[in-house]
């Protein structure tokens, strides 16, 4: 009969030792790619990791042929593409940077990237791309500049405006508003809570600064001063703008969807034709509205001028392609960055793929551009576009603006109190950077 040569005690001792070693090995710090390309292994040097949050539900499919073309043209460089959900951008990028294994090339919009510049995670590419300046729109190039350096290659622009459900307008015999009196009257006339219709979505969502900042512009002011030292939202015009949309139309008239409605619920109502006016981005027109609600007749208007020193306004922000400071092979990474900055990419991905705005000057509009998108894009040429003020404190400021806007929407504060509170909360943390 077989008898084990290992006693129970020896077995337990060996097991404990092995478990401890395994645990220690697991806790060992991962080997960072390092800041020096020389130290990286040869195989890894030819693999470029590319991260981008999505602008389309088919994001991975859109990129596949574009990146295959790059790999064919650049034999020896393999691109690993990863779609990072917007909701986890902060966590995933921070973890990747902290762990020493960040993406070599990545896309981020203008409100996010100053944080990573301050963390010294984005490579300063001023010297490498300063010659590209003339190819880009001024707004695009200016947005890439922070603290005197150029950090990214402008990639795409976003425009937003009010999308009007003209089917509902026509049913009520109302024309598209051209001023705030007409806007308020239309919102009132279109609201019929018994029938489940709402005149307007005065958005209470976590990203509603994209509506509030153009609203402030309509009132003739900005969220922050140009020197990033003070909050400038709390002016007579700013208060009047908040009062008009949030206090009068949404709270007093109850012409807006309730604050507690979820984004999915609002989207569903809008596509069912139950909402008169909703603030939307160009990319949703083809991908969402024309696909899921093809029978709705649509029109668009900007945020209408309210104060004498105000302007018609549209939300317009910009996104860039960046290179990581820790990239193991900056030459291969930059080769990909150059490819992503070609006219071809501006047309194939930005225009045809996601219906957003190319930032290179010479890219003509597509012949089959949707008239709503075309209208929104034309506002930028008229100087309606307002967007992010490049600052590490921008997200703090917009979070405060969103929360205070919600306070007005839900009747907890007046417009004046809310903007005074934005100033009181955000003012002390501004230092001009």
């Amino acid at each position, binding site marked *: 009969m077989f008898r084990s040569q290992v006693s129970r005690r020896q077995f337990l001792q060996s097991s404990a030792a092995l478990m*401890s070693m395994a645990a220690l090995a697991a*806790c060992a710090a991962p080997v960072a790619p390092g800041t020096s390309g020389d130290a990286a292994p040869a195989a890894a040097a030819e693999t470029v990791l590319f991260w981008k949050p999505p602008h389309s539900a088919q994001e991975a499919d859109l990129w596949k042929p574009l990146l295959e073309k790059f790999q064919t043209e650049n034999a020896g460089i393999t691109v690993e593409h990863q779609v990072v959900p917007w909701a986890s951008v902060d966590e995933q990028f*921070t973890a990747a940077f*902290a762990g020493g294994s960040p993406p070599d090339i990545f896309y981020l919009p203008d409100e996010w990237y100053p944080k990573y510049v301050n963390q010294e995670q984005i490579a300063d590419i001023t010297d490498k791309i300063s010659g590209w300046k003339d190819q880009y729109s001024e707004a695009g190039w200016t947005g890439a500049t922070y603290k005197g350096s150029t950090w990214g290659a402008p990639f795409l622009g976003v425009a937003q405006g009010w999308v009007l459900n003209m089917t509902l307008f026509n049913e009520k015999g109302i024309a598209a508003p051209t001023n705030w009196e007409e806007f308020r009257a239309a919102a009132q006339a279109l609201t019929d809570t018994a029938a489940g219709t709402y005149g307007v979505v005065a958005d209470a969502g976590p990203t509603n600064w994209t509506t509030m900042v153009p609203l402030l512009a309509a009132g003739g002011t900005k969220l922050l001063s140009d020197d990033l030292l003070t909050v400038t939202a709390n002016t007579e015009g700013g208060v009047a703008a908040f009062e008009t949309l949030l206090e009068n139309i949404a709270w007093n008239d109850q012409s807006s969807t309730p*604050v507690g409605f979820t984004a999915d619920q609002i989207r569903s109502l809008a596509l069912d034709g139950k909402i008169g006016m909703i603030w939307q981005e160009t990319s949703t027109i083809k991908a969402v509205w024309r696909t899921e609600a093809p029978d709705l007749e649509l029109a668009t208007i900007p945020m209408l001028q309210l104060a004498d020193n105000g302007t018609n306004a549209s939300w317009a922000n910009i996104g860039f392609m960046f290179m990581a400071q820790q990239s193991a092979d900056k030459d291969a990474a930059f080769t990909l960055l150059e490819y992503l900055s070609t006219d071809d990419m501006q047309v194939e991905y930005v225009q045809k793929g996601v219906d957003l705005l190319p930032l290179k000057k010479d890219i003509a509009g597509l012949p089959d551009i949707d008239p709503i998108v075309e209208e929104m894009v034309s506002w930028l040429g008229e100087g309606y576009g307002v967007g992010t003020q490049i600052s590490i404190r921008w997200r703090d400021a917009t979070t405060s603006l969103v929360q205070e806007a919600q306070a007005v929407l*839900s009747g907890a504060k007046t417009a004046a109190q809310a903007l005074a*509170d934005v100033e009181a*909360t955000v003012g002390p943390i501004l230092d001009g950077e």
Partner: protein
Amino acid sequence: MSVTSTAQPALRAAAPATKPRRAWRKMRESLLCYLFLSPSLIVILGFSIVPLVWSIYYSFTKGGMLGRHTFVGVENYVKAFAHPIFLQTLINTTQYAVLTVPIVILLALLVAIVIFQLPKMQGFFRGTVYFPLITPVVIAANIWAYIVNRDFGPLNHLLSMVGVPRIDWLGDPVWAIPAIVMMEIWRGFGFYVIILFAALQSIPKELYEAARIDGAKGLRIIWSITIPLLRPALGFCFIMATIFNFQLFDAVYVLTKGGPAWKTATVSWYVYQQAFQADNVGFASTMGVVLLVIILTLSLMQMRFFRSDIEY
């Protein structure tokens, strides 16, 4: 008998020789225990102790998640206690705990007692009450958002039957906290039911029989026998519920993002917001340390209050 008595002198004589061997064996056994514990200890050290020490250090600095930190002494603490949003989150967090903890424990106690009295299907009901707890929070939150929806939610529909006007539960600053409290109670009470049910099972039946012989009935028995004997379990439940509710994050993150107007923002949510979004790790750590001190103080007070010296 004779064998035992003759062996004793021999054993005594051998004692000095076996002493170091025993000590060695004891040490080896201890070492073995520590080796077995080491994976857990390493995890606790790596994921709790080290981050705690770092957080305390960061609370005295200014800086982001990565990059340089500047030592600023107690500046962050001074700033925290004058910061309107942090103070608001402290008030909100206390409101959550004050509203949730007593209700959830009382409800769990009642349900545990009712299930305990059932002659059959105790397992089924225990599983049923535990079910919300194993539902992923995102799904639970979305279900809850539907339940409390102003226009389509069944809760407002029920309330409208008794003449209550529609409430925008998650949009109204007055009702947003109660709406989340209701969800936390719904999600959490199953956990306490299981704990209290287990404690109920450990109470000797003889005590109930003796009480009945003495003429005690229903509530009197619960008040004089069940509750005192559940004291340690109740204490555990109160401490855990307090800790869980002072750390409330997920429901706020999914349902309201702290709004409307900061009225549902908790300290944990604001710590996350400051650390990950605003990249203000020094200040976020300060708030985290303040929260830790509050939870620790409350837990110690509760432990003292629920300490039971009664033995039956």
